[in-house]
């Protein structure tokens, strides 16, 4: 083989790799739905804390309805993802980070005697912020900003114990739901390259 033939071979590789996805620009719908679910749960606990002395199950009806809608939509998206032709390495890594974070949050919710009070809400915020920040570190600046907002809300909530639920909910609404709306509104190239 001579040098021009070797150059031709490397050009083939360059052409293919140039089209490869190097960042994540996820669909925003799931972020909006799951973000609203978490915010509504935080606000419900806050409302109970402020206005009620005993636990009343029907306060959680809106959260349960939204939770069902979020699960149904997620299943719809998962089914659509199975039909698509390609899953990039970076998307697969993001999904693994998402599952691990949500599993960790699930364990924390189960271990209520260790993570009591607002710890549950804060752990859910962390579970939402980690995958968002992970997308951010892959070059998506909207996701990075959203992740920072969610993390910051946990720090602020720490210093506002009487309204921690409101602060955590605001963090998720601005950081997580806001990022979801931006993912839908802003084209991928702008979100990644600025």
């Amino acid at each position, binding site marked *: *083989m*001579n*040098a021009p033939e*070797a*150059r*031709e*071979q*490397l050009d*083939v*590789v360059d*052409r*293919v*790799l140039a*089209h*490869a*996805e*190097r960042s994540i620009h996820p669909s925003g719908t799931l972020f909006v739905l799951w973000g609203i679910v978490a915010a509504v749960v935080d606000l419900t606990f806050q409302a109970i804390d402020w206005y009620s002395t005993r636990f009343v199950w029907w306060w959680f009806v809106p959260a349960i309805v939204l939770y069902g809608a979020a699960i149904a939509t997620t299943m719809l998206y998962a*089914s659509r993802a*199975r*039909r698509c*032709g*390609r*899953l*990039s*390495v*970076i*998307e*697969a890594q993001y999904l693994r980070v998402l599952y691990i974070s949500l599993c960790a949050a699930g364990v924390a919710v189960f271990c209520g005697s260790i993570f009591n009070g607002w710890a549950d809400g804060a752990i859910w915020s962390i579970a939402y912020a980690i995958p968002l920040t992970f997308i951010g570190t892959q070059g998506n600046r909207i996701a990075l900003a959203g992740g920072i907002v969610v993390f910051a809300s946990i720090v602020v909530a720490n210093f506002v114990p009487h309204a921690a639920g409101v602060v955590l909910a605001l963090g998720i609404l601005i950081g997580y739901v806001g990022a979801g709306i931006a993912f839908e509104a802003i084209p991928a190239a702008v979100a990644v390259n600025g």
Partner: protein
Amino acid sequence: MDELLLSKIRLGAIAELLTAEWATFAALQKAIGTTQGNLGAHLGKLVEAGYISEEKMFVDRRPQTRYRLTKKGRGAFVAHVREMQAILKTGRVS
């Protein structure tokens, strides 16, 4: 030199799978731009060599074939690219 990767279609398929967790036959065909029969034959050779793995499944009651790059395939690709770069530098076959 890896004779198997001298084909542009096989090299292109490996390069496409390098950044993918998996890709379907249709996605590879779209990315490489070749005929179904031609691509099928080339992918068959890569599967036979253990460079890629093949999974057949049904999605929405339709058959779908997915391909993944194996560790062996990744190593062969990297070695091949290094060899091409060396040829470009020295101007001769190593």
